[in-house]
């Protein structure tokens, strides 16, 4: 190295300096960024960094009303779990409930009040202040004689009371609660049979034999978490005899998969099937009530043979099911889903519910138990808008009779068929105000957006529907400080009320006060001298729930008139069999519910349990039908009804009737944020406007469709692999009677040795 020339030297100096620079930068690049420790000025009472604080509240993801406990750390919500003290869910929660955090922390929330600039539906909103936003709306509402419709999602408790007061004060205003999934037919059936305003409690936990007519009770029918708890208990809980469970429906649902026996029945024939079973119970002399003769006469036309013809279920099966149902004590029959969504929905559910009466399980453990009236808020079924009401509203609006529409977190534009004409109706309403937290389809048509908090930021209270056989109420409290410049629905209404000068009827300034006032009544129910309201309120906030374990009078009599008129007409379908050979069965999926789950990325990535599809829509089709049509899994098809068409990929589905096709509800959003937009198709849009005339509910299963191959392939994205076991014995079965011999009680008994010889 003695004779390093100048050139060489410069090279080495260059290499050295580049090296030092690179080394410096390398160290810099892996350096931890500067982190700050930012203390509170004055810490909140329960605040302690590094330690989780749990708040009890009420889940707002579906109408079941489960209690939740939310884990917060440093003021942020981290995890939602069920509230163990709440009798509905007893600490458990479904997937949608777990995903509630993504409603709160959704990147597509509306963050401030907004006013429309220019034409409707062009997404041109500008931010405004609450003062201005509220003044804008109350100014219009204050004009004498202005016809207002308040269209809210189904709310209960004090918020429902407040809505009633608010609309009453407005004068020429109408209040409607609209939910796609509201079980209008079930309410109508219980009202007709037993005169009950409330839905009864179905005691699945203690029943020995469950016959479900289309009710997907383990997935999203009424109160799925509570039903699942009961199902788990009656299946393998303790020493009781294991539940036997039969599911009757045209397409296997999640509940159908759990059933011991799955029976395929033609769509709309569930009611006659129930009457056939009832006929057989009476014919076998297994009902001995004083009105047995009336029943026998009323059911004379429903012999198993005749029913078999209509339902496609063999007469022998009907006889066997009737025998099993009558012999098992207690036995329970429930109906919903595919049994409730035809033009004979109410009659069908009356027939199904009558089975419970005939085996004498009303008011009994393991049977059907009547619920008391809610302890707070108006009755659950009041002001419920069914399809006919919504259609009439749309018609009225189109005639220019509606001046202002206030929409509270419900999305009729997505959950009503195009045939309802709601889109045209919105166009002719001069002022649309949306209180939604998200830019859903309906909100995109609004003139003023007054965004509400999510349920995790709001005060509220709730009475679960259906209840659990006794009075339960729960308080929902904010678990985090509001993320954005939003307000709770109640506070928005109070703000409007204050602007309009409704002080006398609506005296509260905050929703928290309003809730507390309502709970004073509940406190007054307690024994006198059992503590003052403040300590009661403190206890309620801590436990999240209040209950009064007293069963109401369970007198069930069915009037002769009802018995005489029992019967189920043939279902009506829209579309000619020749042109539209398939019955479309739209079903609510596990993750999307009625479409509200589509903007939650966890729900988009939750595989559909049965098909394992993520991020999209699909059409379920019987393998034999697909074969006949030359269709393969993943072929894109056009599904067309008389009302319109959608394109979706085919998924071959082994448990669906050959002339039925099924599509999940929830995708196909044109709005609702980045995760939901332009993904899949919405089957509701192509439904025909057929209703159940008794309840006015939309018969969602009454549309016939044609399925035509497009010649393109667009396979649904699936996470699951092979869906057959191929001898791998991954899921193993045992018969109830098998003994323990084949099992290895010592699971870890096989020795393994790598010791040297």
């Amino acid at each position, binding site marked *: 190295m003695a004779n390093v020339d100048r050139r060489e030297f410069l090279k080495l100096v260059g290499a050295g300096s580049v090296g*030092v620079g690179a080394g410096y930068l390398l160290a810099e690049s892996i350096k931890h960024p500067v982190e700050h420790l*930012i203390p509170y*000025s004055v810490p909140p009472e329960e605040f302690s960094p590094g330690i989780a604080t749990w708040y009890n509240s009420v889940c707002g993801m579906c109408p079941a009303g489960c209690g939740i406990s939310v884990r917060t750390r440093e003021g942020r919500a981290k995890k939602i779990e069920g509230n163990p003290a709440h009798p509905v869910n007893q600490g458990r929660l479904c997937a949608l409930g777990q995903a509630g955090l993504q409603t709160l922390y959704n990147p597509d929330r509306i963050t401030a009040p907004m006013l429309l600039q220019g034409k409707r539906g062009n997404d041109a909103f500008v931010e405004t202040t609450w003062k201005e936003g509220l003044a804008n709306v109350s100014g219009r509402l204050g004009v004498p004689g202005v016809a207002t419709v308040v269209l809210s999602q189904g709310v209960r408790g004090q918020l429902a009371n407040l809505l009633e007061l608010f609309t009453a004060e407005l004068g020429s205003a109408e209040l409607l609660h609209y939910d796609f999934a509201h079980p209008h037919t079930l309410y109508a059936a219980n009202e007709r049979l037993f005169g009950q305003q409330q839905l009864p409690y179905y005691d699945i936990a203690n029943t020995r034999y469950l016959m479900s007519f289309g009710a997907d009770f383990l997935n999203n029918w009424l109160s799925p978490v509570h039903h699942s708890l009961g199902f788990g208990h009656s299946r393998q809980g303790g020493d009781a005899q294991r539940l036997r469970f039969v599911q009757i429906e045209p397409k296997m649902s999640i509940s159908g998969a759990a059933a011991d026996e799955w029976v395929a029945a033609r769509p709309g024939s569930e009611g006659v099937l129930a009457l056939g079973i009832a006929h057989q119970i009476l014919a076998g002399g297994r009902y001995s009530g004083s009105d047995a003769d009336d029943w026998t006469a009323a059911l004379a036309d429903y012999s198993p043979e005749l029913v078999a013809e209509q339902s496609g279920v063999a007469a022998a099966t009907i006889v066997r099911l009737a025998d099993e149902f009558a012999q098992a004590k207690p036995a329970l029959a429930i109906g919903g889903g595919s049994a409730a969504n035809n033009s004979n929905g109410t009659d069908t559910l009356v027939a199904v519910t009558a089975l419970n009466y005939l085996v004498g399980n009303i008011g009994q453990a393991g049977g059907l138990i009547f619920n008391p009236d809610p302890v707070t808020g108006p009755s659950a079924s009041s002001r419920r808008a069914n399809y006919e009401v919504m259609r009439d509203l749309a018609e009225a609006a189109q005639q220019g009779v509606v001046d202002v529409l206030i929409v509270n977190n419900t999305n009729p534009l997505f959950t009503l068929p195009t045939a309802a004409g709601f889109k045209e109706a919105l166009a002719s309403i001069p002022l649309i105000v949306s209180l939604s937290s998200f830019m859903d389809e309906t909100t995109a048509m609004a003139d003023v957006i007054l965004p509400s908090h999510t349920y995790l930021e709001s005060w509220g209270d709730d009475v679960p529907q259906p209840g659990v056989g006794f009075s339960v109420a729960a308080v929902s409290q904010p678990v985090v400080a509001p993320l954005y410049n939003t307000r709770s629905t109640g506070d928005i209404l109070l703000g409007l009320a204050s602007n309009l000068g409704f002080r006398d009827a609506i005296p509260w300034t905050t929703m928290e006060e309003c809730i507390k006032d309502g709970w004073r009544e509940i406190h007054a129910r307690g024994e006198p001298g059992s503590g003052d309201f403040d300590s009661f309120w403190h206890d309620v906030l801590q436990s999240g729930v209040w209950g009064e374990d007293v069963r109401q009078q369970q007198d069930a009599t069915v009037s002769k008139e009802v018995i005489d008129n029992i019967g189920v007409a043939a279902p009506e379908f829209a579309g000619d069999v020749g042109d539209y050979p398939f019955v479309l069965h739209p079903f609510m999926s596990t993750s999307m519910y009625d479409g509200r789950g589509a903007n939650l990325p966890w729900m988009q990535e939750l595989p559909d349990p049965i098909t394992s599809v993520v991020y999209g829509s699909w059409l379920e089709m019987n393998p034999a039908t697909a074969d006949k049509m030359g269709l393969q899994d993943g072929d894109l098809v056009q599904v067309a009804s008389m009302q319109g068409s959608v394109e979706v990929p085919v998924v071959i589905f082994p448990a669906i009737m050959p002339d039925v096709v099924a599509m999940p509800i929830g995708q196909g959003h044109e709005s609702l944020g980045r995760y939901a937009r332009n993904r899949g198709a919405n089957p509701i849009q192509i439904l025909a406007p057929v209703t159940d005339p008794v309840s006015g509910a939309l018969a969602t299963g009454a549309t016939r469709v044609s399925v035509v191959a497009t010649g393109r392939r667009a396979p649904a994205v699936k996470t699951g692999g092979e869906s057959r076991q191929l001898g791998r014995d991954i899921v193993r079965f045992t018969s109830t009677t098998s003994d323990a011999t084949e099992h290895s009680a010592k699971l870890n008994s096989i020795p393994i040795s790598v010791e040297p010889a």
Partner: protein
Amino acid sequence: MNVSIVPTLRVLRPAATVALVGLIGIIAGFYANATLFTDTSPEQPIAFSHKIHAGDNEVPCLYCHVQARRSISAGVPSVNKCMGCHLEVATDRPQIRLLANYWDTKEPIPWIKVHDLPDFVHFTHKRHVQAGIECQTCHGPVETMAVVSREAPLKMGLCLNCHKDNAVENGTDCWTCHK
């Protein structure tokens, strides 16, 4: 045929020398950054002196870092807590005026973290304080520092050696400290 690699090596020698010098440079640069240019005692928004509080006035560590015995994090005192004393004490000093200013405007004080662990480490103050480990074991003689600086390297070796020396239950299982 007689083949030698010597000529090839001779050709490669200048390149190898350059590479070697470059490598030494990288190492030198890395260390220079890590030792000379890494701020182990950053300038804080208020020139708070642990020496005055914990040293001269013998305020116990846990008086202000009250969470340390029951939480994973020791916690920084809220401005509220500071003002508990400084409404009365030394109110005329410029740094205390700065503090009072934060208090009046209800602004939080953006302290800069001196002792920080990577996100994949689970460290709980509670267990260590309850086991009677002195704060100074990891944080150094803070009560003598007018400006806090990071004395101990807080690297895995420090944890493991102490866990081994004290025969901590499951003290060397990765999942005891890595999350």
